[in-house]
């Protein structure tokens, strides 16, 4: 396959980028006078983020190959969310070729097609919706113009079918058209087709990576190979906050298969001939740590309590309220692990002033930058070749292991592959922070809420992240990740408060799929259910009555009605089964869920979940449904089973099983997904459906037992 990359003679910049398109605030209004702060908060809440990379040049994205396949170099990575399939659909429709003529591959940084941000935040398809279709349409016209030229006819006389042009009895494939072209004529951006005219967009096209994943092709970071490669391993402490003092490597040095022990200022690593030998040698290194820490879970819980730390009001409407008649409830969520099945790993090769890094990463550009900085290389000389991700969920927004592998490779002069053990994955995760919430509310004489307050404390999510510019936290005064889902979506309540409390934890916490959404929704929606019960109202009607009548409000009301109708929601226990309801709005996508629950042998059993969501245009409705199903199950796992704890300064447990997760037997046998389309472009999909599930299940349990479960994981 040769690469037909040519100079572009005339460029039409299809610029989309920067933070220009800050979304309109979906709910409430703010007390802040500072418009920047307000705009950034709004953006954090709606995640209406434009794609941040170069979309001016179709040649950066599309490559014609001799076999007439078009390679689509994707700067967004595929981690299960189905982005590759949606991109292929969008490209095929505007290129006017069959989707099987498109092969989506990860763009290596050497192609120059680099995402300025990350793959995450449910922004990939939404952010590329406009620019990718425009580039595909432009590319199509470029080829057409050239084809007409080569066939000696006017563009209008060309007949084009599935990547083949014909005129005057002659035929040319896309690839033949491109052959030998030195300078392309680039037209103005052609008009895009109407959505209804698309052949692939909006259809349940099978995933483009289906065969690779069913037949076991070597597509993951763990599968990466280079000739002559060795295996690395890096020593890590088991205690929180442990500081390295010294290492005795003498025993490890003479272990079988050991090639070299690498002692750097910030880590000690082993390179050996096999993964097992590297691991064994690492375990034989005697390290002295300064680990003064004897923290227990109880210490973390008392630290994470509303009232500790610094507070920021993120939502304020109406007036203050006096304490009388105020209902108050507390909720908690635990430390959560990512627990993605493919461990973090990397294969690095450093030769002279160049480095090649094969890695499953959500931050291709950042990985490159960090390796270049550490090795003092030009960024252009570091080629990051992304692989498929065996799960992302936010865990792969941090890739310091790429630096370590590169350092080890340089030290041994050969490629070095290195990955985390499962124990290291669990103890050195960048966890979902634990949270504590205090909800306060007051009903008026008609049983309507006149006051609703959400106070919550969380460890860091976005603060201190290389992905969140350092200037942001001081400006907005709140962690843009922790506050996801922390806003109250019931705009008709006259007096609203949402207050975020910031506490620093002694261990690293960060982005976990949907960020603050799951825990915040658990608190707010459990409390809404409680207030509906106290008002003696049906929880669906109670919610609907409190939602404002703007666009966001109407979309939310519609998903609430759709979920309730499709589930046949009833507020009574029938045959030992009860329904629980909850709804959330995340990144501008509203989602409502009904969970059908019973108690079996003392355990909470979820039989069916009905979910309604309005993600706007569903580029691939089947994969949107798959994301909904996956979010329900991952959310149930986090809400009902998972919990990290701290024992004598160590994060535990260190293995699946003890880190209890939802298995086949826990998954609902029915998940019914209803998709609505309340806006005419694609919105967020991969995270919003994680919001309601914890509260929906807890609210069903309340109907069965009269007990309000206020702690994740939910226990009877």
């Amino acid at each position: 396959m040769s690469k037909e990359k040519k100079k572009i003679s005339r460029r039409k910049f299809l610029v989309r980028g920067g933070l220009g398109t800050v979304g309109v605030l979906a709910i409430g209004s703010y007390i802040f006078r500072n418009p920047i702060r307000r705009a950034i908060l709004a953006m954090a809440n709606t995640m209406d983020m434009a794609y941040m990379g170069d979309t001016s040049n179709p040649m950066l994205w599309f490559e014609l190959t001799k076999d007439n396949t078009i390679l689509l170099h994707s700067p967004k990575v595929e981690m299960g969310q189905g982005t590759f399939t949606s991109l292929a659909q969008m490209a095929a429709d505007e290129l006017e070729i069959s989707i099987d003529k498109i092969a989506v591959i990860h763009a290596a940084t050497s192609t120059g097609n680099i995402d300025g941000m990350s793959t995450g935040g449910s922004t990939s398809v939404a952010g590329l919706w406009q620019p990718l279709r425009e580039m595909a349409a432009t590319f199509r016209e470029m080829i057409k113009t050239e084809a007409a030229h080569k066939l000696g006819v006017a563009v209008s006389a060309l007949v084009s079918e599935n990547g083949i042009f014909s005129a005057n009895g002659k035929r040319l494939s896309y690839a033949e058209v491109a052959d030998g072209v030195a300078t392309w004529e680039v037209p103005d951006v052609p008009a895009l087709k109407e959505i209804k005219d698309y052949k692939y967009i909006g259809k349940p096209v099978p995933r483009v990576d289906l065969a690779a994943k069913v037949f076991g092709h070597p597509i993951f970071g763990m599968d990466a190979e280079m000739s002559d490669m060795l295996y690395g391993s890096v020593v890590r402490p088991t205690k929180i906050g442990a500081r390295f003092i010294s290492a005795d490597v003498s025993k490890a040095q003479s272990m079988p298969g050991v090639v070299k022990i690498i002692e750097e200022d910030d880590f000690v690593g082993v390179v050996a001939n096999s993964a097992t030998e590297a691991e064994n040698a690492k375990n034989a290194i005697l390290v002295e740590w300064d680990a003064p820490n004897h923290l227990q879970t109880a210490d973390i819980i008392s630290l994470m309590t509303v009232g500790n730390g610094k507070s920021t009001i993120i939502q304020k409407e109406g007036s203050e309220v006096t304490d009388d008649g105020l209902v108050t409830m507390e909720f908690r969520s635990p430390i959560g692990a990512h627990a993605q099945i493919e461990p973090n790993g990397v294969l690095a090769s450093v030769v002279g002033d160049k480095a090649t890094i094969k890695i499953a990463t959500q931050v291709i550009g950042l990985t490159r930058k960090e390796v270049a900085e550490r090795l003092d290389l030009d960024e252009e000389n570091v080629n990051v070749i992304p692989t498929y991700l065996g799960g992302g969920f936010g865990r792969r927004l941090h890739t310091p292991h790429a630096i370590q592998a590169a350092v080890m490779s340089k030290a041994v002069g050969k490629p070095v592959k290195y990955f985390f053990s499962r124990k290291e994955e669990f103890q050195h995760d960048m966890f979902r922070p634990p949270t504590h919430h205090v909800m306060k509310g007051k009903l008026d004489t008609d049983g309507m809420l006149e006051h609703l307050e959400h106070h919550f404390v969380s460890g860091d999510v976005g603060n201190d992240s290389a992905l969140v510019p350092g200037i942001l936290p001081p400006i907005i005064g709140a962690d843009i990740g922790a506050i996801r889902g922390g806003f109250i979506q019931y705009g008709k309540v006259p007096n609203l408060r949402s207050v975020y409390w910031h506490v620093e934890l002694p261990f690293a916490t960060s982005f976990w799929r949907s960020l603050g959404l799951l825990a915040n929704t658990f608190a707010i929606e459990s409390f809404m259910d409680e207030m509906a019960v106290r008002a003696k109202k049906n929880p669906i009607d109670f919610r609907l009555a409190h939602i404002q009548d703007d666009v966001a409000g109407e979309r939310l009301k519609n998903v609430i009605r759709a979920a309730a109708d499709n589930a046949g929601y009833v507020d009574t226990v029938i045959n030992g089964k009860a329904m629980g309801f909850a709804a959330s709005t995340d990144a501008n996508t509203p989602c409502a869920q009904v969970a059908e629950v019973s108690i079996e042998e003392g355990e909470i059993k979820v039989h069916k979940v009905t979910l309604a969501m309005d993600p706007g245009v569903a580029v691939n409705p089947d994969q949107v449904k798959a994301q909904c199903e996956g979010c329900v199950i991952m959310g149930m796992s986090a809400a009902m089973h998972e919990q990290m704890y701290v024992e004598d300064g160590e994060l535990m447990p260190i293995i699946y099983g003890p880190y209890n997760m939802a298995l086949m037997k826990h998954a609902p046998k029915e998940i019914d997904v209803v998709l609505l389309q309340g806006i005419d472009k694609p919105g967020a999909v991969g995270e919003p459906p994680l919001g309601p599930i914890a509260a929906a299940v807890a609210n069903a349990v309340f109907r069965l037992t009269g007990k309000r479960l206020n702690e994740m994981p939910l226990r009877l």
Partner: protein
Amino acid sequence: MKISFFLNGISETIVVADGNTPLLWIIRDVLNVKGTKFGCGKAACGACTIHVEGEAVRSCSYPAKFAEGKQINTIEGLGNEENPHPVQQAWIEEIVPQCGYCQPGFIMATAALLAKNPNPTDEDIDQNISNVCRCGTYFRMRKAIHRAAELTQSANTKTEENV
């Protein structure tokens, strides 16, 4: 130590310093057959599930020396695009995978289950399929397992008719 076995029907002989090296690493790193995945190394996730003499085995915790003389099968030996195993066919029809990393292990575990129990009930599935999928594809997997059972049965009926 020298160990000989059949990997997907092909006879292989490897030399390994330590016979207790997990078979997973022999398959992945020595024989370079990468479909079988590493997830935990402690028999706790099922990502490394293979067939040893037709039985589902978690290869991360299976010492290579025990493979001597045995028939070892991995996802690559189960079927291919031209001739998919009914479990793979069902997985394609139901569009099961998301990230895909856990899938070879589940597919191998399911194929072993169906070989013993051609028409498993939901309860049988719950009891026998204990791998972990972080993307939460269990809902589609269950549908795919029932579908695979159907496909296997109709294939068997056809074979019988031919006989």
